[in-house]
């Protein structure tokens, strides 16, 4: 159960080897989380992540999850919820990809970052609604607000997911389940390794701290760092001819 401060006791991570997701899991385990379920493609990284969280004191389960195999999501997550209530679901699956104008690669990015994440979020939202309480954290991106040349395919998928999550939040209003949309800026992770950082670049740990603070508040959307909320409010209105020339 989430307690009076909305600190959860159990956590399901969809895309369980993402740097941001693991930083968040680590932080929440230091508070009240005692059960962690990592849903991801089986890999050495997944095993290592599970071991690390176990050492930190959590009971950790891993579930094989393939974002694009949407017809399997119901069964995979059904078993997770059958094993006990999940207080927070963190949907963090996504691929940045390259921005070569390759239709097959672009479709793959969308299939994981948008379609897979949306399907997983819906399956989990229904399970949360049945248990009558919980929070669904959807990892979006500031790119969802205004795509840049460097990431527009990924940005378009996050824009779709972001819009979906906002609508879902309204659908779930009054159900005891809330949705928290998280829009980080450039985060130094293995996904962005080697890329030139954009202004206001941040770290997975900073995103984790912001997610924890967001869960404790009644916020529906948070930006990381927080100043990006104001920055994006301005950038949204910058003419394209100028936006195109901005750094990053």
């Amino acid at each position, binding site marked *: 159960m989430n*307690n009076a401060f909305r600190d959860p006791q159990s956590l399901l991570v969809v895309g369980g080897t993402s740097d941001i997701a693991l930083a968040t899991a680590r932080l929440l385990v230091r508070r009240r989380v005692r059960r962690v379920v990592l849903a991801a493609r089986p890999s050495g990284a997944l095993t290592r992540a599970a071991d690390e969280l176990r050492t930190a004191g959590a009971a950790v389960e891993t579930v094989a999850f393939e974002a694009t195999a949407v017809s399997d999501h119901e069964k995979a997550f059904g078993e997770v919820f059958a094993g006990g209530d999940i207080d927070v679901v963190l949907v963090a699956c996504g691929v940045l990809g390259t921005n070569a104008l390759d239709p097959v690669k672009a479709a793959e990015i969308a299939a994981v970052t948008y379609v897979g994440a949306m399907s997983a979020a819906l399956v989990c939202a229904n399970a949360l609604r049945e*248990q*009558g*309480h919980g929070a669904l954290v959807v990892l979006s991106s500031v790119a969802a607000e205004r795509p840049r040349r460097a990431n527009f395919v990924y940005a378009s998928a996050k824009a779709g997911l972001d819009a979906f999550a906002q609508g879902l939040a309204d659908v779930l209003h009054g159900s005891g389940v809330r949705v928290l949309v998280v829009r980080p800026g450039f985060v130094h992770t293995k996904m962005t390794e080697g890329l030139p950082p954009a202004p206001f670049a941040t770290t997975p740990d900073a995103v984790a701290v912001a997610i924890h603070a967001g869960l404790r508040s*009644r916020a529906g959307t948070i930006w990381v760092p927080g100043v990006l909320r104001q920055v994006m409010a301005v950038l949204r209105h910058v003419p394209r001819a100028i936006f195109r020339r901005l750094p990053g």
Partner: protein
Amino acid sequence: MADALLAGWGRTSPSRARVLRPGSVDELAAAVQTAGRRGVIARGLGRSYGDPAQNGGGVVVDLTRLRTFDLTGDRLVAEGGASLGELIRALAPRGRFLPVVPGTRHVTVGGAVAADVHGKNHPADGSFAAHVEELDLLTAEGMVRTLRPGEAAFHATTGGMGLTGVVTRAVLRPIPIGSPTLLVETRRCRDLDDVLACLSGSTARYAVAWLDCLSERGRGIVDQAAHTEGPVTAALKGPLLSVPRHMPGGLLNRHTAALFNHLWYGKAPRVSVRSMPLGAYFHPLDRIRDWNRIYGPDGFVQYQFAVPYGEGLKSVVRRIARSGVPSFLAVLKRLGPAGEGLLSFPIEGWTLALDFPAAAPGLPELLDACDQAVIGAGGRVYLAKDARLAPESLPAMYPGLARFREVRALLDPAGVFQSDLARRLRL
């Protein structure tokens, strides 16, 4: 039948459940037997501060239609949904009073049993359960069992937070009173030692102190009271004020709390003696309808703990005063020897209850640190108030927990009675 989002009095962590309002014990039994996978819990007037009377995704039975009662001789037989306020109102003109009343009268008999509530007279009279001659418990298989003190099921039910079954009826022994008036002595105390000395030296039946935990010294006001032969006034009055539904958050902060505590202390006379109606003494906050709304949409948390006499109380008070987290008037009482309820809260020593805005920065970590100090002193927190305790802290606080679990497993092997509190604390 309707789905509803339910929260406790602190208005934190709501969850959605199917709410049934049975009009008879038979309807109640049917509701329990058809509860489904996520179980059922009884709810009364919703005055538990945290999550014991909610059951996310399951069934909540609202007991307030089962509210009849009858006074014959000196025994009061009341249904589980009867409120203590209604009972007091009926008893007072007949020169009777409830032996134990908590800080609000908006509590049902079932809730008073399940939380094993205590009053300002615990050293003299014990907790609510000490005055229950017998009670009827609707168990998981839909049968009503009559329980009496001495039976394991009785002592698992008193203080058992509704997890052994639904209390459908209780037989109580009211006490005789000369009039519905109390003689109250109010005394201003300049620091915590003064407050403790004043409470320790009190020979009055009822005693309570209001403590200013924002002042380093821990100054306070001690009210002692006894029943009296006095002018007959109305025992209970209706609310004077009510708080609007949409209050903004953040009204109660360190500065407003300090100001309020200062004014409260300043208005108290150094020493005074006067007579007061029952309600004004026992339930001052009931005069403000929906007072919990003043904390705004984030709600509030009440932290009530008990520690044996010794240094435990002061160490927790100092920790809270130093933290800078705003706390409004804290209520300090003495507790007498513990009763037999396996999860009953009172143990001999001090009990302090503090209200905090739930969104106060640093509060979650402060209260976790207080838990450790309380455990170190051999104390515990009160489950009827709790909304944030960690499950691993519970066994150290309640040595009766293992026995409670055994009795509960016998009474309810399938775990039909469930609540958000039970899930959170892995009861």
